[in-house]
């Protein structure tokens, strides 16, 4: 194995490991909000490493492919925001939190808003 292949394979193994970690977190953690942690952090990290490995592989063979860098930027910018959207919609549609949860500040503001709306109507 040459040096470039060693670098590319290290990146590949790290990326595959963290993708598997995100998927395992998706199935092991107890409720939607905790699963959003795993999906938003680990999957993003793994995919960034995998695409970076692809980019380096083609860079070493002599092709500079900027589309892959663009895809890395896009995944990095959007993945936490999509987990925010999913968890917000889960909270609005009253998906219950995990049993051991202690505090829920957002619930109180929702109740206040509903009372206001009832008074107005």
């Amino acid at each position: 194995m040459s040096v470039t292949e060693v670098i590319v394979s290290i990146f590949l193994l790290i990326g595959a490991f963290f993708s598997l970690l995100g998927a395992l977190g998706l199935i092991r953690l107890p409720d939607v909000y905790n699963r959003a942690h795993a999906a938003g952090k680990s999957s993003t990290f793994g995919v960034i490493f995998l695409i970076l490995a692809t980019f380096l592989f083609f860079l070493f063979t002599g092709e500079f492919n900027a589309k892959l860098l663009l895809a890395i930027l896009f995944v990095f910018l959007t993945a936490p925001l999509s987990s925010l959207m999913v968890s917000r919609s889960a909270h609005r549609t009253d998906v219950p939190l995990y049993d051991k949860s202690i505090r829920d500040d957002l619930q109180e503001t929702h109740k206040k808003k509903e009372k206001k709306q009832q008074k107005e109507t």
Partner: protein
Amino acid sequence: MFQFIQYIALITMSISLIICFIRTLIGPSIPDRVLALDAFGINLIGFTGVIMILQDTIAYSDVILVLSILSFVSTVAVSKFIERGTIFERN
């Protein structure tokens, strides 16, 4: 050896895709399923990257870009839909 490592990465990615799909099937609530589909899309991007190295072709780079955009837009659209019942708010 290099080929062996690529196959290991490919198999690991397939396992994580299968796990995401299982969560899509059994997820107790709808946001669970949406989250699992989002993670499925992101893992699919990495899968395509590994296949690009394995086949030594650059043709799938457009696929990666389009998948990353479609995954985000569809997640936002579906979660807005289950939140309010509409995607675009007309006030």
